């Protein structure tokens, strides 16, 4: 009997041990900050071009650290994911305190993660870093979050514009000058439609495009006509700000005139048939797109290369939407390096972030992903110095529009996606979509985040 009890005890112990082992996170760190041993710092990238770029830079960082007497190794966590997959996965990792030490984050994710306390503030590190003085003042200002702190060191930026097929418009005899107003642009789009019978413009809309319907579709147009929809001082959203209704009306106008590729927008991966197939093939002539279009999307090593890109494609700024609006470019903070609050290797992670955000390593990444520099000392650094489109985007940043937002951006993005979905499904006009948005966003944000 004793033997049976012993077996039972061992079996129960094994199960408990296994469960605890499964629940605990493995640590591959050779050492922690402050200890004498070597430190292994992990860095996560989720886009292939960024993975490739950072992988090449790691040996240089390790050698640089060695020269400074620091034994820091880098483990690249290369995990190619879509934006939504990345967000879902890393959010779980951050909650479980299992996230890599350094994460390359799209700016739209920073407010939510910083607000939840998942990211460490970087202000103290930045104060003591000489590279910080070279960041453009407007970029520095845009990095500051609702609580006055900085949580991600931006290393690439860009300007969102309307990319258009100059070759085709010229062939059709359609004006390629900057359209001053949306009415002007829509008139040209209708001419294109008459010539091709297709749907000439793609702007993210609907739920399939995820958060990008807000960040790459709706928000840039909204920001150009109305900058009062969010207040960083109060942390509240003004859902009754007039720009919202104007943009919903614009979406409905484009839908009702048959200018949007509705079926493609409802594809599970709507960017594929639109940006990666029809725009390169010339079946869509205008696309809302950030600076990365020159490299990441349509460059020679991009997702869907367009031969002779610089000759065939050019950009317009967004036209004015309401009376008195002037054409504008929308600047985005792009990607930045964030450090989880739970990381045991913050100092080493910050050293890596600073290395990757400086000089040649930064220039290599900018060219790889197709982005503009947030710093004033990169214009002469090759290979970035050889990229006129990226250099121009860097110059345009200073005059571009940007409205920093904070807590609740995800909920607003969700409500905008659902409301634009109603439009492209033919279930709502601009007014009805706005009403649906107002109700949904108010519900989702709750009373503390909505201006009375």
């Amino acid at each position: 009997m004793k033997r049976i009890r012993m077996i039972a005890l061992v079996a129960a112990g094994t199960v408990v041990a296994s469960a605890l082992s499964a629940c605990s996170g493995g640590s591959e760190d050779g050492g922690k900050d402050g200890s004498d041993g070597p430190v292994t710092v992990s860095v996560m990238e989720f886009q292939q071009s960024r993975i490739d770029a950072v992988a090449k830079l790691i040996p240089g960082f390790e050698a640089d650290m060695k020269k400074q007497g620091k034994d820091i190794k880098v483990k690249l966590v290369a995990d190619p994911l879509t934006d939504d997959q990345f967000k879902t996965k890393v959010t779980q990792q951050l909650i479980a305190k299992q996230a890599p030490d350094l994460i390359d984050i799209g700016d739209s994710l920073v407010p939510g993660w910083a607000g939840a306390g998942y990211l460490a503030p970087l202000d103290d590190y930045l104060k003591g870093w000489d590279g910080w003085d070279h960041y453009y003042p407007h970029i520095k200002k845009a990095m500051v979050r609702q609580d006055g702190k900085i949580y991600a060191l931006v290393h690439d930026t860009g300007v969102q514009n309307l990319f258009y097929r100059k070759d085709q418009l010229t062939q059709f005899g359609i004006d390629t000058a900057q359209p001053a107003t949306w009415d002007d642009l829509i008139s040209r789009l209708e001419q294109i439609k008459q010539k091709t019978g297709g749907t000439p413009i793609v702007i993210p809309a609907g739920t399939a495009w995820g958060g990008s319907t807000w960040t790459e579709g709706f928000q840039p147009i909204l920001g150009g006509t109305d900058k009062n929809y969010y207040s960083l001082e109060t942390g509240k959203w003004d859902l009754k700000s007039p720009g919202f209704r104007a943009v919903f009306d614009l979406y409905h106008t484009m839908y009702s005139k048959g200018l949007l590729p509705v079926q493609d927008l409802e594809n599970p991966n709507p960017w594929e048939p639109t940006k990666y197939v029809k725009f390169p093939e010339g079946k869509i002539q205008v696309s809302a797109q950030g600076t990365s279009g020159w490299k990441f999307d349509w460059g020679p090593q991009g997702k869907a290369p367009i031969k002779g890109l610089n000759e065939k494609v050019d950009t317009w700024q967004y036209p004015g939407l309401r009376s008195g609006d002037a054409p504008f470019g929308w600047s985005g903070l792009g990607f930045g390096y964030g450090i989880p609050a739970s990381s045991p290797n913050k100092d080493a992670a910050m050293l890596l972030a600073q290395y990757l955000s400086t000089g040649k390593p930064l220039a290599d990444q900018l060219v790889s992903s197709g982005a503009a520099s947030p710093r004033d000392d990169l214009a002469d650094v090759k290979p970035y110095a050889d990229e006129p489109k990226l250099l121009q985007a860097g110059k345009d940043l200073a005059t571009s529009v940007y409205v920093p937002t904070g807590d609740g951006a995800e909920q607003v993005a969700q409500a905008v996606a659902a409301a634009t979905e109603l439009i492209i499904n033919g279930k709502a006009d601009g007014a009805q979509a706005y009403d649906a948005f107002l109700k949904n966003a108010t519900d989702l944000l709750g009373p503390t985040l909505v201006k009375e």
Partner: protein
Amino acid sequence: MTTIAATASAAAGPTGQASPKRRRRRTWPVVLLLLGPAALLIVVFILAPAVYGAYLSLTNTQLTGFAARDPQFVGVDNYTYLLSNSEFLASLGRTGEFVLYSAIIGQTVLGMTAAVLLARPWVRGKGLVGAAILMPMVVPEVVASLAWASVLSNNSAGTLNRLTGLFGADATDWLQVVPLASVVVVNIWRGIAFAMIMFQAALEDVPGELIEAARMDGATALQIFRFVTLPLIRGPVFLYLLLTTISTIGAFGLVYFLTQGGPGGRTTISAIYIYERALQFSQIGIGSAASMILLALVLVLGLVYVRLAKVEV
């Protein structure tokens, strides 16, 4: 069971007079050994998360934003919100359609048909047919989804479009044009095997003499199936319906990989709605409440099935 009884009997000694209390005390280590690990796993991975989910459903917990730092108890607000939310109610409706067409009608009818046919002595190539039907169950869910994404692909290279192209039809984007019907077909394809196996096993237990007697009385094949076979296998049929209903209500991967709930939310069944709310939009409180509502519906359906079949579960 025999071993335990034998062990207990031997332990009682030559008189065999050990009291039940003493016998229980002596056998508990074995019971613990056999049931303990499973019970522990159930508690840790099923009961505890379910209880925690029920708690979360009463809070406004979020995964991101300032609200994530200080979740508040909100009572039944999440439930009130969901039960008046047209998107959630629509997802429940779509889940009902999905279960009805793919599990209750599709898998059950086709699985039964396959089982009955393969039980016929005159059917040739049973092994081949059986293997073909079983294959979808063996294929991992992701692989199955990718294979069907290729079959239903919107370009002319898609397998289905190639077939319809033989009759002069234009290429169609099936997952866009008929999304729910497409995922229903895929789920039927994947679930037939399990139905067939269960029904085959049940049919083997039907006494041959009853069938023979009915046949001699002049009953047609359909009448024999309706009035003799079906009543005799009622228990397994309802058990299968219970299992397939539960698993289909919780179906996620197949639909998500094929359509991600689109286009326009036309395949956003409840599991996808919950995923979007809880993980994509970070509203874990609302997502948990939606899960609890779904759990309640499954429990009610389960009770109905058990009552109808008088199945012991």
